[in-house]
């Protein structure tokens, strides 16, 4: 009956998320579609031409990747301090999503960089710190997979996530400092401020990505809870 106790809260989450999920999916599809349409309809940049439209894919991916790490760290804090089983599951479910958005940000950044910088990859501050963020995600997932006991894996990964969250601003700072000193970074805030014709599609795209993350996150948490239920049923059956 221990599992009943442990899943009292996830049970409530399952009910709530089942009701919210259809609306979340609808909102995500609508926002992504609108972002796409607005993005295509927006005028080409006078310098960058149509490649500027990669921005509507790249910037929201980067934003979502960062937000995902923030949520991962928050869930980890809940997991460590209040020992909430739902927080463990939420943190675990956020990591692969965050890693995917980070990868998406890196790939779109690289595609954007090719016509801008004339190279597939430059050690620009943004790209470099996102590469490091990807490693943080990979390390987090590797640690989860390496520890067999679920509770222990959750706690260990939570400690790592919090250490990473404390360190992330320092990493950002150092990478910025580095690329400034190298004088290589040309694509920085110093460029022309973004005109509002670009801003609106960007906002809608960001909303779409954010909603997409929350939709996928909810689905992943639900799947993980169901998986654990199945496992505990099987284990209970074997012991009886």
């Amino acid at each position, binding site marked *: 009956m221990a599992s009943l106790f442990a899943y009292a809260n996830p049970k409530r989450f399952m009910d709530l998320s089942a009701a919210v999920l259809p609306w979340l999916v609808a909102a995500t599809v609508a926002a992504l579609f609108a972002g796409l349409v607005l993005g295509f309809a927006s005028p080409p940049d006078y310098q960058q031409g149509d490649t500027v439209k990669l921005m509507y894919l790249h910037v929201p991916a980067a934003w979502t990747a960062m937000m995902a790490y923030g949520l991962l760290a928050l869930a980890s804090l809940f997991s460590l301090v209040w020992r909430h089983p739902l927080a463990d599951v939420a943190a675990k479910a956020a990591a692969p999503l965050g890693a995917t958005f980070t990868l998406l940000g890196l790939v779109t950044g690289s595609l954007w960089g090719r016509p801008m910088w004339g190279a597939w990859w430059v050690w620009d501050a943004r790209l470099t710190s996102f590469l490091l963020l990807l*490693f943080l995600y990979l390390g987090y997932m590797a640690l989860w997979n*390496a*520890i067999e006991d679920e509770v222990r894996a959750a706690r*260990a990964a939570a400690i790592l996530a*919090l*250490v*990473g969250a404390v360190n992330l601003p320092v990493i950002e700072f*150092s990478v910025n400092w580095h690329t400034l*000193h190298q004088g290589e970074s040309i694509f920085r805030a110093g460029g022309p401020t973004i005109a509002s014709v670009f801003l609106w599609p960007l906002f809608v795209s960001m909303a779409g990505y954010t909603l997409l993350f929350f939709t996928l996150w909810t689905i992943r948490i639900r799947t993980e809870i169901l998986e654990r239920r199945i496992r505990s049923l099987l284990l209970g059956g074997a012991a009886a």
Partner: protein
Amino acid sequence: MIPLFLRDIRLASRAGGSAALALAFFAAVATLVPLGVGADLRLLARIAAGVLWVAAVLAALLSLDRLFQADFDDGSLDLLALSPLSLESIAAAKIAAHWLTTGLPLTLLSPLLGLMFGLPPRAIAVLGLSLLVGTPSVSALGAIGAALTLAVRRGGLILPLLVLPLLSPAVIFGAGAVQAVLDGLSNGALLFLAAFSVAATLLSPFAAAAAVRLNLAG
């Protein structure tokens, strides 16, 4: 704390201990680089700081995965946990001993390698200084990784993945300080490095102790 500190130093310095191995690894990696990129001393001097910093970090990490695991495997960690010391002090003593047996020897060897890479004297001095100031952060953040992977069978493989991204500021500021000397600039990298190192050293015993506590339940 002192008995534990002394014991760890003794263990590291005995035959088969980690201190000598880390030094040899450091020198071997540094030797491989000129073989790979060529013997042009001007080029080697440009990349010396980065190469030596990366090699030093790897060498220190190599010896870190056993930091808690050896004591975990043979039951010593249980006895340490029941001792009058807090787990935080235990982690701090182990970090200090690790730095003294790897970070410090690596620092002392670095001028020789800097010379072989064609660094001018002032750059060599700054390289040594940056390692002296920066390697404590390697021991400290590495200890968190070592404590987290304590019960993992192939923990030594995961450890670098966990810790290397966290250590990127140390490498950037450490190598950046030397680069600044070569370019005739002053950029405050050593100060940033010192701040990073101090913060890492002060905070990591708590994270490492939390991770050890977790694994003792295993």
